């Protein structure tokens, strides 16, 4: 994925999430949604290091990962609207969306739930001697789940082709990382499994991509998993209704100043890969795309009520 394409995908995620936030505010969308505004570089940086036929597992905060892996914003939006054209035909919703065809093995409503699933997918690939890898996204909160330890232990033991990408956005809902995570950090835990651990600036897409590329290369040649901790920040609340009483507006402003999208834009302008006008045009294109996604979702048919009873068993 080129840097320019990465830039476009980051805007796609940003504008998608902002529209979702607005639609929730207007009462158009129901249920709940966990938005990743501010974390776009971890999703896109990681996927930029993958091949199209590699796999990704995601979290409850999964729209960004899905779009970064190449998900169609129309079908994502349709899922949030609960429509038949959504990726899960309206049965899954925000936290339960997948597209196996593009290697997106699903967002996941259970904190840490995707970690062993990713590990098992990596085992399946290894058994077939395939040179494909699985990138497993999770938050720093999930690093305290038992399956984190169990999975990393087995992945390291068997040298599975997995990349564990921890998005440390400093808060597990309201709990600050310092109040929940013992030791020097998530990446440092890699040493316990004898695998490389990398701590990177999660708002610097180049840093994320470099770490993920190295990890993917290792995984592909049978050297096993890598644990990458991306320090980042979600600029919006945990979910709808979060008044963010556990952090200060000053802290938020500091992180807004480190917004990964303008950072990439500046880098692209400096390198001459885009002009300011082209950069603006990319954003406008994405804006139209997202507007189209909302229209598509609005106009799409709902699944007939009877279909709620189908699809439980294969």
């Amino acid at each position, binding site marked *: 994925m080129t840097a320019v394409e990465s830039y476009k995908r980051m805007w796609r995620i940003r504008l998608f999430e902002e529209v979702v936030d607005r639609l929730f505010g207007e009462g158009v969308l129901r249920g709940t949604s966990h938005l990743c505004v501010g974390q776009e570089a971890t999703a896109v940086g990681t996927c930029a290091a993958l091949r199209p036929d590699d796999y990704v597992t995601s979290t409850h905060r999964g729209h960004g990962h899905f779009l970064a892996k190449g998900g169609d914003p129309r079908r994502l939006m349709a899922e949030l609207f609960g429509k038949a054209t959504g990726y899960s035909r309206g049965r899954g919703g925000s936290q339960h969306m*997948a597209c196996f065809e593009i290697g997106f093995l*699903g967002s*996941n409503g*259970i904190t840490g*739930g995707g970690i062993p699933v990713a590990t098992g997918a990596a085992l399946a690939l290894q*058994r077939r001697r395939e040179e494909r890898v699985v990138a497993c996204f999770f938050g720093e909160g999930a690093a305290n789940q*038992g399956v984190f330890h169990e999975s990393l232990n*087995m992945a390291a033991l068997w040298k599975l082709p997995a990349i564990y990408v921890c998005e440390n956005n400093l808060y597990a809902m309201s709990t600050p990382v310092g109040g929940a995570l013992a030791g020097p950090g998530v990446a440092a835990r890699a040493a316990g499994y004898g695998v490389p651990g990398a701590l990177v600036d999660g708002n610097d897409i180049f840093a994320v991509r470099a770490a993920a590329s190295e990890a993917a290369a290792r995984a592909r040649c049978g050297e096993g998993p890598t644990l990458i901790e991306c320090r980042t920040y979600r600029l919006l609340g945990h979910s709808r209704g979060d008044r963010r009483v556990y952090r200060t507006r000053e802290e938020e402003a500091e992180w807004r100043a480190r917004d990964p999208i303008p950072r990439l834009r500046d880098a692209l302008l400096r390198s001459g890969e885009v002009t300011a006008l082209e950069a603006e045009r990319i954003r406008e294109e994405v804006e139209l795309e997202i507007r189209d996604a909302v229209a598509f979702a609005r106009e799409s048919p709902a699944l007939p009520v009877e279909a709620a009873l189908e699809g*439980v068993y294969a």
Partner: protein
Amino acid sequence: MMEVAASEVRGAPEAAVPRAREVYFTEALQEALAEEMRRDPEVFLLGEDIGVYGGCFGVTRGLLAEFGPERVRDTPISEAALVGMAVGAAILGARPVVEVMFMDFVTLAMDQLVNHAAKFRYVYGEQARVPLVLRCPAGAGRAYGATHSQSLEAWFLHVPGLKVVAPATAADAKGLLKSAIRDDNPVIFIENKVLYQSRERIPEGEYAIPLGQARRVCEGGDVTLVAYSRMAREAERAAVLLAEEGVSAEVIDLRTLAPLDIGTVVESVAKTGRVVLVEEGTRTGGACAEIGVQIFEHAWDSLDAPIRRVTTPDIPIPFAPELEAAVIPAAADIAAAARALVET
């Protein structure tokens, strides 16, 4: 490959089975695993001490030598991730068979079973198939105490998306395990530990028994005894006891609890008008509670007497062998319940 009709694999009379040979229940399971592994390279085994050791109960003994450590994979003691990994491998087309050393340990993997294995197909809009089998050595009778003796199948009946299989005979163990492995859904496969030691005749060659078909063990007109797994054998013995008293009992071995062959049960109850439901699990919220209500829903007007349940009482399984034996249902308890019904 043939599918064996229910009549051909009845536990008794054994003379009715044409070509057959005698094996232990564990060997029947092992044959099913080996045959399916030979047939399909995507089938592989995951579990604790299943390799060199051959599994805690010897079910996988010898498989390492034939299939190697990649297909008979010993794992760390990590039930949650183990089951989660099976889910991840399954959605990419593998067919993992996981051995949970004791069914009691399934508690450690509940999230992966309930929230992942059972739901992926539905919530991902039918993109996913999750063909995995969780083999669960279950039940009491060996004085292993409260955390190594439970029959927890009722929990899984409450989870749409799972199938639950519980064979009572070696012949069924083989045929049902083969079907479970070929099934595209997650299957909880319950192996009663006391049955492991039974040596029985099974049909020669390869055969599979479809999931969701109960087995009429013996015919009778006075009362129906419905059971599964080890309790189907106790019910069979109870029928013998009852016959000595002139009571004719029909025994139905459910074989699978999900899907449940309620049709066969209802058909029998329509004939006898009386039913005793038997399970090794504890009473409240047990499998029999569900089966009883379904009988009532489908055939309340056939009932000449109240439905009776014979179960383990609502207690942890005690260690002392005498206490354990006293609380686990046995043929005499089942016969007593049936007798009481026939007398009403």
